[in-house]
């Protein structure tokens, strides 16, 4: 029998992660349907236009796609990994020849699939029920693809790093969810970012979600809207630079702090 490689085992782990995820119905429903419920609520309450040819739903879908990257990466992993640590899953894996990288490849596959399903559902529901317009140029779709790749990678790495913060699997959700929800409020997911108090905008600008949200707006909103952003333009370069910087920070943090068993 040939020697298994990190990548081949990682792909096997990804398949296994997806199988387990799909068998946990509550979490599938929560992760996948909750953003759609939010879209339905916000889309119905704020049916006005916020600029010429831009509905609130259009603005909100951009924010929810950015949030989708955070939910499926950061939030999902920072809650799931502490549970696996408590259950002894990680320690058991550590005792096998499975390379550590395979475990993370498996998680990345799970995040990628759930993120893509999430984005697809948001766009489908947005177009079908809330008059959301899809990007019209190949350039914008390419920008969306780049944003999803870099944003999701950043979110995944930070989720792995943050998985060492909750003291136990049971408490993980209580530690992680508020972080995400507060960031969503600060980052212009639920409200127009430029309507937020100045200090809130300043705080949000430190964290990647604000930049993911702004990046998503640059895909889904007309370029004429760019003048209404804080800098008066989309700041695409800075968006990728800051998300990329967080990716590097997360990588160092994760490598230095990751634990295979509970203390």
């Amino acid at each position, binding site marked *: *029998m040939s*020697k*298994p490689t990190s990548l081949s*085992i990682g792909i*096997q782990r990804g398949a*296994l992660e997806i*199988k*387990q995820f799909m*068998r*946990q119905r509550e979490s599938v429903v929560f992760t996948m349907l909750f953003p759609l419920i939010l879209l339905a609520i916000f889309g119905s309450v704020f049916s006005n236009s916020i600029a010429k040819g831009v509905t609130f739903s259009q603005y909100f879908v951009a924010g929810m796609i950015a949030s989708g990257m955070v939910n499926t990466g950061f939030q999902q992993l920072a809650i799931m990994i502490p549970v*696996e640590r408590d*259950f*002894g*899953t990680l*320690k*058991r894996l*550590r*005792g*096998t*020849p*499975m*390379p550590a990288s395979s475990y993370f490849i498996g998680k990345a596959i799970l995040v990628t699939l759930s993120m893509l399903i999430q984005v697809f559902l948001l766009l489908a529901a947005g177009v079908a029920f809330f008059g959301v317009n899809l990007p019209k140029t190949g350039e914008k779709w390419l920008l969306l693809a780049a944003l999803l790749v870099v944003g999701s990678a950043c979110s995944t790495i930070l989720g792995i790093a943050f998985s060492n913060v909750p003291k136990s699997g049971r408490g993980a959700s209580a530690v992680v969810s508020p972080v995400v929800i507060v960031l969503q409020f600060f980052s212009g997911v639920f409200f127009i970012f430029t309507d937020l108090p100045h200090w809130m905008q300043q705080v949000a600008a430190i964290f990647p979600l604000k930049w993911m949200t702004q990046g998503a707006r640059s895909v889904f909103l007309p370029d004429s809207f760019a003048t209404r952003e804080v800098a008066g333009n989309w700041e695409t370069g800075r968006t990728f630079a800051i998300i990329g910087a967080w990716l590097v920070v997360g990588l160092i943090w994760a490598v230095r702090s990751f634990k295979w*068993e509970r203390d």
Partner: protein
Amino acid sequence: MSTVISVSGLHKSYGSNHAVAGIDLAIEQGEIFALLGPNGAGKTTTVEILEGFRDRDSGSVQVLGFDPATKGRAGQEWRDRIGIVLQSTHDAGDLTVLESVSHFAKYYESPKDPHEVINLVGLTDKSNALGRTLSGGQRRRLDVALGIIGNPELIFLDEPTTGFDPEARRAFWQLIRKLRDEGATILLTTHYLDEAEALADRVAVINRGKIVEVSTPALLGGRATSLATVSWRDGVELRKEKSANPTALVAQLSAQFGGEVPELNVKRASLEDIYLEMIGGAHE
């Protein structure tokens, strides 16, 4: 016969707690070696150092000719040759027995056949049952299946039969003996003295971070040569006598009573008596 595990001068402290205070051990290929000791004696720390989960403070450790503290790729090759059955776990509840075992087989270079292993641990009927539907004993057998799927030369078993009913324990012991007969070396930690006595070729008693004695279960603590207690009824009085030659004493009593000795009882120290004495336990 070659030495599979050799440890000398092993030390490990957690703050001011000297958990392992100078341990020497040599475990030979093909034996079932039991590590006995009360909670907090340093048993788990020692085994976790051997398994590569913990770093030591000092001393030398060789497991299958390899230092378990080595990091990186060499560690993966070494892990291919060992199997670890941890204390109870609750993971993989959403996978079937067959899915879990088949998946773990993929981590190893030359694994056993998953169906064969499932059959060996007696879970064939449960192959397609989800992990979370298994009983405690079945769950434990799945743990063992995952520990041996890689066809290991050395198996670590930590408290393997906790929560088993007597019949399941006996079946489990048969399984362990079978793995030994196939050539594996087994390091067992257990709380159950009857388990050590039934299974182990040799036992080590560990207390306060040190090995108190290493011996076969029958010879531990001078058990074979310890005095036997003979007791019998003499009229209204229940009499007791410690003797190095109980057979002679019984023959003498039999002659004295003209055959049957009333309420005759000959008792040697049990492994438990010896063990409790060694660890300075609560008895007497």
